[in-house]
């Protein structure tokens, strides 16, 4: 729907206020006006130019104002390098006139929605976009996880594909690292590609300090600010340990029972999926690089760094050219060391069976 005259509401804000569009952030006009952000979308959207005009509200709402629109069009045409001969203009005007037929308007409308969705996918991964989404996250606009043991933690809208038309929007729960179908059926018409595969995980990397275990009804708190000396500030694998799937692990796994007795794993109907909700009791087990270094400390033949088990690396001996990037902390040093040991992707094995391969 194009904005009616007199209404101050833009196409974008009216689109975002539609029922079922609660997950959308309002893409800033500056973002859309930057052609770089639209690279490649021309080929994905029918009637691209008209759709873009509709989104930006540069289109007049009546047929009567066609002339005004034509002038605008002409500028664009000459800008494209065509010479503005009368013939070309007439031809153009004719086509333009046809495009104003009501049935075409609905085509443009759906094109505009598609285009907006695809721009939205890119926008929410940009700095301003992800900031806007974080505000919506804090307000709980994306709903909560349906899993009982996740205790109503806030979820994030994600797509399972970046290509439109493949699947609808899903909700990613950072507490159990799983995806769920939104509870309300009105979201089943929203394309998942309008949010994309990247946003959910990128959000957590961008805002590592949200306390992910907080329920949607509680206000969001920051992990480290509240307690700087507490162990909640410990990081592992690039995230705070408290934020590694807080909804999983001992006590958060459903144990099937019959009259109080646990159902054995050996029963045919016994539990088979508990691994999906498991988490090591000692979270440092997940620091694979450190574990690898501890187990392979003295053995590696091409280990040209002098290193002890505390993760202290004598950085002076390493040649700068062989390092990808210097990052502080023993964790990163170990990772670097690992990269040096073997340039190609390699497997890490608990018992060290890989080292000789």
């Amino acid at each position, binding site marked *: 729907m194009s904005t009616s005259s007199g209404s101050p509401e833009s196409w974008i804000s009216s689109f975002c206020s539609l029922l079922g569009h609660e997950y959308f952030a309002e893409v800033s006009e500056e973002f859309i006006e930057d052609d770089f952000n639209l690279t490649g979308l021309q080929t994905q959207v029918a009637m691209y130019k008209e759709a873009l005009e509709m989104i930006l509200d540069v289109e007049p709402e009546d047929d009567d104002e066609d002339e005004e629109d034509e002038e605008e069009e002409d500028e664009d045409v000459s800008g494209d390098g065509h010479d503005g001969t009368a013939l070309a203009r007439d031809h153009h005007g004719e086509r333009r006139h046809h495009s104003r037929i009501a049935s075409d308007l609905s085509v443009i409308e759906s094109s505009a929605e598609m285009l907006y969705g695809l721009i939205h996918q890119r926008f929410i991964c940009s700095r301003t976009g992800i900031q806007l989404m974080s505000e919506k996250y804090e307000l709980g606009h994306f709903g909560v996880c349906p899993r009982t043991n996740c205790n109503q933690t806030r979820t994030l809208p994600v797509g399972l594909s970046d290509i439109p038309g493949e699947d609808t929007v899903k909700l990613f729960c950072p507490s159990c690292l799983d995806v769920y179908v939104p509870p309300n059926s009105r979201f089943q018409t929203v394309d998942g590609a309008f949010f994309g595969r990247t946003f959910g995980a990128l959000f957590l990397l961008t805002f590592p300090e949200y306390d992910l275990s907080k329920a949607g009804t509680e206000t969001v708190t920051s992990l480290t600010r509240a307690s700087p000396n507490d162990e909640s500030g410990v990081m592992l694998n690039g995230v705070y340990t408290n934020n590694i799937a807080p909804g999983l692990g001992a006590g958060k796994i459903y144990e099937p029972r019959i009259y109080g007795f646990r159902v054995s794993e050996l029963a045919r109907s016994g539990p088979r999926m508990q*691994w999906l909700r498991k988490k090591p009791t000692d979270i440092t087990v997940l620091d694979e690089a450190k574990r690898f270094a501890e187990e392979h400390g003295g053995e590696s033949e091409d280990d040209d760094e002098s290193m002890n088990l505390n993760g202290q690396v004598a950085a002076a001996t390493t040649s700068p050219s062989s390092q990808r990037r210097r990052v502080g*902390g023993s964790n990163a040093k170990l990772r670097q060391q690992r990269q040096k040991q073997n340039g190609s992707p390699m497997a890490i094995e*608990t018992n060290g069976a890989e080292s000789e391969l």
Partner: protein
Amino acid sequence: MDDFVSESDSEYASYWRDWFISSRGNEYFCEIDEDYLTDRFNLTGLNTEVQYYQYALDLVTDVFDLDCDDDMRETIEKSARHLYGLVHARYIVTTRGLAKMLDKYKKADFGKCPRVMCHSHPLLPMGLSDLPNMKPVKLYCARCEDIYNPKSSRHATIDGAYFGTSFHNIIFQVYPALIPAKSTERYVPRVYGFKVHAAAALVRWQNNQRDDMRRRLRKMEVDSGFKEGDDDIEGDEDDDLEEDEEIGIGEGGEAVVAGGVGGVAGHAGAIA
């Protein structure tokens, strides 16, 4: 089923129960047989749990004829619903109760699993406690073996004790053919196609746990119940190796593409 027909035929016989199970919010309940309700043995101990027990029972069995004011009527009505729920928990683990609940399960009357990878598998109602007034009803998915909160608030207030902690497990013991095939399919968070290191490390650890379990089961010659295609533990190696670039955030806050550390599950499998 036979008893369904005979009950609906005897017009007024199950008036209260008919009304109860067809009223909004009570979609999870099945109808308890008259025979079951009138057998005192099945109601053992409930007289101390339910206020105005005898009146409530009369109301449920449609023999209530006490002349009383509206407040009293309302109290008894509430007691009757409570009584019905408590008897329901016992009834649904009987052969006939299981069959009725099975019908409802097949029609997905209890809703479908919200987890995307469960592909709308039907749910079963369950309680986290057998004692009343402790926890509201939850929904159990036999495919992911996890429990979920009901979508609708009108179901979220039903007492979990009206279904009990055992029913949803008993039904799969009685009807083992209903046990759904388990799947290793799962969601892996990615940023521009790269796995996120923290999540991927956890996934690898979990996959190891799963493979350990499957090896344990194989040793005991128990069917692990995973889908045909997933049966090959070694097969997981390929998945891991294909997509073994990850993104992580170093302590300095910079994105670091860590060298892949895939293949844990696969190699562990090869050793066994």
